[in-house]
């Protein structure tokens, strides 16, 4: 039986990128859509260059893998680099979000979170 993947610690922006990739799915998650998705959900401005750098880092940490999609006319016939979150990436997201939730318990009133 294969060992369970061990979660890795994630920085905040790494977590957001992974969550966006998971939300968009492996056929729609790429740099532009991930940046747009984070902007839309969080309301903060996101630099695509940062998304690109973060995806490179996540790939080096083997949390995601990428592949080239089909060429698309709106991109001048160029393909998208589609992102798939690997199981260890999913486990890492789960561990990080669980840690955040655990930390929030008891301080929700203080930070203005009412659940």
């Amino acid at each position, binding site marked *: 039986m294969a060992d369970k993947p061990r979660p890795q610690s994630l920085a905040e922006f790494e977590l957001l990128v992974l969550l966006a990739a998971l939300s968009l799915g492996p056929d729609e998650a790429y*740099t532009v859509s991930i940046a747009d998705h984070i902007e839309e959900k969080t309301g903060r401005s996101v630099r*695509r*260059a*940062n998304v*690109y750098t973060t995806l490179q880092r996540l790939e080096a940490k083997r949390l995601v893998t990428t592949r080239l999609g089909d060429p698309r006319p709106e*991109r*001048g016939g*160029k393909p998208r680099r589609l992102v798939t979150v690997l199981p260890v990436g999913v486990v890492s997201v789960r561990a990080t979000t669980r840690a955040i939730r655990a930390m929030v318990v008891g301080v929700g009133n203080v930070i203005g979170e009412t659940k």
Partner: protein
Amino acid sequence: MTSGPRWAKALLRALAPPGEADDVLGDVEEVHRYRARRHRPLVATALTAIETFDMAAALLRARSVRLRTKGQSMMRDYKLGVRMLVKYPGLSIAGGLALAIAIGIGAVWYDAMRDVFRPALPLPDGDRLVEVEMRDPVASQDERRLLHDFLAWRRDARTIEDLGAYRTVQRTLGFGDARAEPVTVAEITASAFHVTRVPPIMGRPLVDADEQPGAPAVVVIGYHTWRQRFGGREDAIGRTVQLGRTETTVVGVMPEGFAFPINHQLWVPLQLQPSGYAPLEGAAIRVFGRLAAGATQAQANAEFSALVKRTAAVSPRTHEHLLPRVLAYGGESPGDRSVFELVVKHVPVLLILLIACANVGTLVYARTATRDAEIAMRYALGASRGRIVFQLFVEALVLALVAAVVGLAAADWAVKWAMSAFYSGQSATLPFWHDPGLKLTTVIYAGALTVTGAAILGVLPAIKATGSQMQGQLRNTGGSTLRFGAVWTTVMIAQVALTVICIPPAMGIAHEAWRDRVIRGRFPAEEYLAVRLDLDLDAGPIATGREPAIAQRKEELFAELSRRIAQEPGVEAVTVADRLPGMGPAVRSAEVEGSPGAASDFIATLWTATVGPGFFEAFERPVVSGRGFHEGDRAAGARTVVVNEAFARLHMNGASPVGRQVRYVAPDPEAPKLPWFEIVGMVRDIGMTPTDRGEAPYVFHAASPSTLNPAVMGVRVSGDPSAMAPRLRAIAAAIDPGLRLDEMRSLDELAWRVDLPGVVVAGTLTGVVCLGLFLSAAGIFSLMSVSVARRTREIGLRSALGATPARLLAGIFSRAIVLVGSGVAAGNLVLLLFVILSDLDLEIVANALVATSAIMMTVGLLACIEPARRALRIQPTDALKEA
């Protein structure tokens, strides 16, 4: 412009990693199209520009991270390579030495061949400078008496411009005080200064008017002479110096580094007789020039061949057989770079490197074999085959780099030492185009050799080690699976054979060098001072060689010098000859008159010397039969010679040679026979060089000192001969300022210079053979070690089943014995073939073969001792552990 600015795309494409450019550009284009729909074009372009710079910065950061990671990975490989050097010291020393020798020899060879073929002249357009030589194939030497030809060429040649000529003469340079000393002077045409395109830093160069007979005597001096003799003063121009017997005015100073045509520092005009010269009349000169614009060396060669043919039609006796050659100046290249030049330059280097790599490769392969478990583990953990091969290549590269540094340092030292020894032996300084030490291009060439060597050493064993056997290793639970296959076995046999082949010549040369030193030791060379005598002539046109006054003056001055030196305290004997014992031989073919009615006896090699009065007495070689020389024998036309005892032993069956005749064989078989010489006496054997072993047949001619060329004086003293040197100079200066003493050295020092190349060759060859033996031993050791490691389980089980140590060892080491035996047999076979083809004495060679085989087998067995001990220490429990 809905797809985004062109420059932005170009920038991102340049920075994106390979394979990622399209999707990065696609992102930019997609976002720009979206912006273009929502904003005005200018705004959209501005926003895209900002994003492009942001993205470019991100790409640069990613690139630097990748480079750092790759650099760290390579650094780890290099560190591992260094650790391997320390962990396997035997391989590092043996392999490193072999590679250092190969790379060092390669660098020296490349350096030397470049200078031999086409040296880089430090002159403007130096590659257009040429030298015209005349080859005499009948005499197998260059014909340099070219005054007649030079005048014709200078008038008619079109492919070479500024044709000039020079000769090197020795003069005494004086300043009217006690600082007079012998100097080397170039008598050169004014065209030399056009050819070289180097102007003087002060005054003027030589001009055509200086070449006219009767023109005021002038000299152009070099930078160093100017600094040393005139203290770098600007008023040197116009000063007068005493050059030989002539008051000469300094008219120019050349810049630092200028030493055309060879290594000259003083230039005086070459003056020629207005009436010209007959073919091959007058002094030896060398001819140079610059290829005319658009002309090639091939065209120049064709033109000069035609010119010489024209002269040969008028004077067939002197010119019919002569062949002109237009060569790159200072080199031997007769034309454009040829395949021959490339082959000579590179093939020997690659051959030596290949042999060294084959030798070291067996050791590296054995080391790799002991690490196959580690390699298999890395493979299992995800390292690609290319990654493992690269790591092994880097390990080999570290070894090769260390070897290259050692080899290049040794080569640099050797080149400097050899050049200095060679030119000091010639009593000269380096030609101006020679830069002592290795050049940058040579170091780059050695770098290429290093990488090539590392590729052979590292990659080939790595490919083998990471091949299909790695799968076997992954399944295997212990012991090595790598084998010494047919290739490496053949390499090892070839290595043993090569070592076997090298042993007899190395032993022979070392023995000869030792014998030469022993023979030298018997001769009291340290009691003699040798000095070359010559006479400065008056400035003026080159003589035709028919002037009697010069010979008369030489005769008187040399005789007076001998008389005055003989009167000095401590001087035991004085003599003059064209060579003294220890200065090397002059060998000629000759025939000896047979007994009445019998045919002449042809002698392939007869050793000759021309001696002045008192020669045999000075070297204690008494006349044992007939008589010695008297004054009548020195007269022109006298046909008498004295021989040594070896001559009588070899060609007279021990009978007295006195009264018999000998004559030399003319180089040209069509030429009339040369005259007979009558043998009037026989002296005790005298070794003029160690190689004659005191057994060579010598013929001595008598001559007066003035006709000797060169005239070398030998002075035997009771104390240190070098202490006599200043006194000799003072006596010569007192007799005549034009009397010149050159190359004053003790005979001992001269003899050492003659012996030195033999000693160096013997030492080098012995070193190479020792290294070969060491590499063979290391290879056999590696083979046996791997064999024992592979068969640990088998040895343990056989030991448990009661096999005796002798049977165990026989089973394991039979391969080593077969391998060494095959190498010895192959080497001996090659030696035997060589002996049969070269007609050597089989008995002597048979002894050498027996000795060689014994040495090699002993080395092979010694290499097996440690693996044998390891094999005998294996217990049955070791086999169980492996299982």
